């Protein structure tokens, strides 16, 4: 077999593999990019740029089973690079450090155990848009941690390695991110009048 023919066979096989994987992952990549960038145009650019890099570097990927995490890593790195370039959207945290917030503790009423579960009822009423807004409002580094651990199921160690930070930092960011997310959901629910026994937008 000539070198050219071998190359062509590899290229066809690579193209078929890449197309199938992209088709499988496209909605997750785009959804993740939407959560990271906060708008459709930037999300589209981020996914397109990431997939262009992935396609160009595919020959360097030794284990095709690892494609999913590999392409996700490219997307995350692309997002972080974009963030660093855009001074108006810093990746570093400037968030206030209020105490830990638990939606469950705010809503759960032990004496109602057998008659009602306000916390479960709230989950039934929350719209996807409510959760998107709460997630989108998180400071960048907390949002990154939530996206990587909750949306992509990465371990703390994998997240730490990708972000080049200690595992303890990831543990702290994911905990803080969830706390802020639940706090934001609580405030949104209150504003929307979804909380029983509370007047719309008046509770402290």
């Amino acid at each position, binding site marked *: 077999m000539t070198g050219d023919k071998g190359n062509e066979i590899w290229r066809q096989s690579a193209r078929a593999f890449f197309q199938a994987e992209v088709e499988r992952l496209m909605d997750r990549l785009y*959804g*993740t990019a939407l959560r990271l960038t906060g708008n459709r145009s930037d999300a589209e650019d981020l996914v397109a740029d990431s997939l262009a890099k992935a396609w160009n570097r595919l020959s360097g990927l030794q284990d095709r089973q690892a494609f999913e995490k590999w392409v996700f890593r490219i997307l995350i790195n692309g997002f972080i690079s974009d963030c660093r370039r855009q001074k108006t959207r810093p990746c570093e945290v400037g968030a206030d450090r209020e105490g830990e917030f638990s939606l469950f503790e705010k809503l759960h009423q032990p004496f109602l155990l057998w008659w009602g579960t306000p916390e479960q009822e709230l989950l039934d009423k929350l719209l996807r848009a409510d959760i998107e807004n709460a997630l989108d409002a998180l400071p960048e580094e907390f949002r990154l941690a939530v996206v990587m651990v909750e949306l992509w199921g990465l371990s703390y160690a994998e997240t730490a390695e990708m972000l080049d930070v200690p595992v303890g930092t990831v543990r702290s960011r994911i905990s803080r991110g969830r706390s802020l997310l639940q706090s934001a959901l609580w405030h949104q629910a209150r504003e929307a009048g979804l909380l029983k026994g509370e007047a719309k937008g008046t509770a402290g």
Partner: protein
Amino acid sequence: MTQDLRCEEVIDKLLEYLDRELDRETEDALAQHMETCRACFSRAEFERRLRARVRETGKARAPESLRQRVHAIMERY
């Protein structure tokens, strides 16, 4: 043999438990506690449901324009 945990300890470790970040022994201890503690079990179920709702937001129908861009990239290189 698993260790006995108090509810405070379970709640403190709950999110790491749901993330599968605990060592086997601690994970077993939490699982065992939640077999008999309704309050901790309820909280774990709530957190599970909430994170499932959060996970849903990470998937969105990609626009046709993006699919065409990716196709063009593959043609170009």
